[in-house]
């Protein structure tokens, strides 16, 4: 699959996921403003093209360690709207049972790891799973390609010791880890110049002895193409891969942040990857305005139905909660 022959089907799926992510997050914002979400809400607005392009490369049995802005990758990898809303609303029915919330949802059974907040801390666990698969002889797809592990990081997170140690350990073991670096030029309010001094974060790859790839996160075809190549390389045994995308963060760090630290001159240059894609596909005739509004309507229906359903579900009950951190305390007495 190259840029030329990338099927319309893939590009449509990619668009659909972007739209899903965008609309779901719109709903999250609404819920947050309504005070129905406790704590914070972090959005991936602007990161959808890259994140969705990563997600569509995943196959069942792969591993994804998303961060806060990877709603699209999650959806592409099969996370249900139900699960998203359950976790945001802290429902007892959700995978996190109200014990953890918002973007921390996941379960190894689904291939999506529940993130911890400590940036960089998910890389080594993904490497560990890939090593485990190798040791168990469970590291291959039916066609002989390798299962991959994808882990997400931002320009800020690249400065963490955990990232360095985890990525290096993966590289040394030649594990099929694909590191998604979303360089949106800010870590919260901190411009990249305060986080790194290299020309481009992709310059780091050579120091780990891994391959690097770059793309413009506003260009959906470039994202699809680049991630396809990176993932293929990992699947075919070429070891860990680093993919760096330049992203425009179209929201605050979280929904309580107005991002006024981003100068207007920078704000003005920002593009919206979803709108760009829509224009492009409509221009090329691959997608009509009516198809779009039908799709958006369908997504919105999905969201509203799911939300309505989830809203009725029970919240966790402190009385019935087991306040025991060990999974099997009884084993200590056997």
């Amino acid at each position, binding site marked *: 699959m190259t840029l030329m022959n990338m099927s319309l089907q893939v590009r449509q799926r990619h668009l659909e996921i972007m739209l899903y992510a965008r609309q779901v997050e719109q709903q999250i914002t609404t819920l947050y403003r309504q005070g129905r979400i406790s704590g914070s809400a972090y959005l991936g607005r602007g990161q959808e093209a890259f994140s969705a392009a990563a997600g569509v490369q995943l196959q069942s049995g792969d591993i994804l360690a998303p961060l806060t802005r990877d709603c699209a990758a999650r959806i592409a990898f099969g996370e249900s709207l139900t699960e998203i809303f359950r976790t945001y609303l802290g429902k007892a029915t959700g995978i996190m049972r109200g014990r953890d919330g918002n973007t921390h949802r996941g379960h190894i059974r689904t291939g999506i790891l529940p993130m911890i*907040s*400590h940036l960089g801390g998910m890389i080594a666990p993904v490497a560990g799973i890939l090593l485990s698969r190798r040791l168990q002889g469970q590291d291959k797809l039916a066609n002989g390609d390798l299962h991959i592990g994808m882990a997400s990081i931002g320009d800020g997170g690249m400065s963490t010791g955990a990232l360095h140690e985890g990525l290096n350990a993966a590289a040394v073991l030649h594990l099929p880890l694909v590191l998604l670096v979303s360089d949106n030029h800010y870590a*919260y309010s901190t411009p990249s110049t305060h986080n790194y001094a290299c020309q481009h974060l992709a310059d780091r790859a050579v120091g780990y002895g891994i391959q690097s790839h770059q793309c413009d996160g506003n260009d959906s075809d470039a994202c699809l193409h680049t991630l396809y190549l990176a993932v293929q390389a990992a699947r075919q045994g070429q070891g860990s891969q680093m993919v760096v995308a330049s992203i425009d963060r179209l929201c605050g760090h979280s929904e309580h942040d107005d991002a*006024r630290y981003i100068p207007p001159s920078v704000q003005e240059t920002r593009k919206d990857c979803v709108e760009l894609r829509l224009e492009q596909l409509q221009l090329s005739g691959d997608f009509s305005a009516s198809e779009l509004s039908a799709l958006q309507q369908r997504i919105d229906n999905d969201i509203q139905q799911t939300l309505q359903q989830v809203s009725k579900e029970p919240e966790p009950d*402190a009385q019935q*909660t087991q306040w025991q951190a060990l999974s099997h305390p009884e084993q200590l007495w056997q």
Partner: protein
Amino acid sequence: MNIPMSEPITYLEAIRHAQTDCLHTDERVFIYGEDVEDPLGGAFKATKGLSTRYPERVLNAPISEDAIAGMAVGAALDGMRPIIEFQFADFAILAFNQLANHAGAGAWRHGQPCPLVARLPVGGTPGGGPFHSQMVENWLTTPPGLISVAPATVSDAYHMLKQAVRCDDPVMFYEHKALYFHQRASLSNAPEYPLGRAVVRRQGQDISLVSYSAMVWDALSAAEQLARDYQIEAEVIDLRCLKPLDMNTLYDSLEHTGRLLVCTEAWPYAGVSAEVIAQVSSQAFHLLDAPPRRLNAKDVPVPFHPHLWNAYRPNTADIVQAALDLVRF
């Protein structure tokens, strides 16, 4: 130093004012941490405006907690007075090596003090979840050489931070996020106590309620309820300094109350409350008329959902109940 001394300010503003004062009066002071520069001025805005006034001495750091602490160690050894801000105390776990083995161990090991202050936004709020809510004093008090302080009031937040900066030894400064906006007081006539002293916040004869940080306010409201509903007069002691502990103030209290209840928002196992009880039990056993008790958070990760969060942390009702049990022992 144009602090409006008579106007009520918040706990967070007190922290900002203390830093402004320090930057103003002491050229050795600088601030280093993630997002501390303007326009944001810190995730909680504790340093808002400071980089504009002192652009060379308020510096954004990369997301590198170990390096943030390590840089502060070097600068402190070289004669500066760094204040480092951890965005959330939970992330200081990544700096534990530099704090313990460099900052804490240094003075005894090679004879040179390391006067840094680590500002640690601790504690939970509903929806904060497992990684933005932790109390970190239980492990940060274990290595030798680190002072730990936990202000509960606006006045303490202000004075103790300035004292911490003046102190030649490294100070872990726990500032509770639930107090940031909700505690308000004026700094005029705000009493300044020595950094190491525990303070009696309310006098009473029947039981000593010992706590620190946000939990002091729960202890105070429990004391009021105990007085109102049960005619029990609780003495409420705010430890303020967690390591070293001012045990004499506790012993003085126990002389007349004979009963001890220590309340914290931290996990129970091997924490500050265990240390208080261990010291009291071994040094002042004769003062105890009933078993010493403690109330802590449940020994599980800090829960996200407000229902769980409310049950996770001891509250006023729990304190009242435990105090009743003890007094009726």
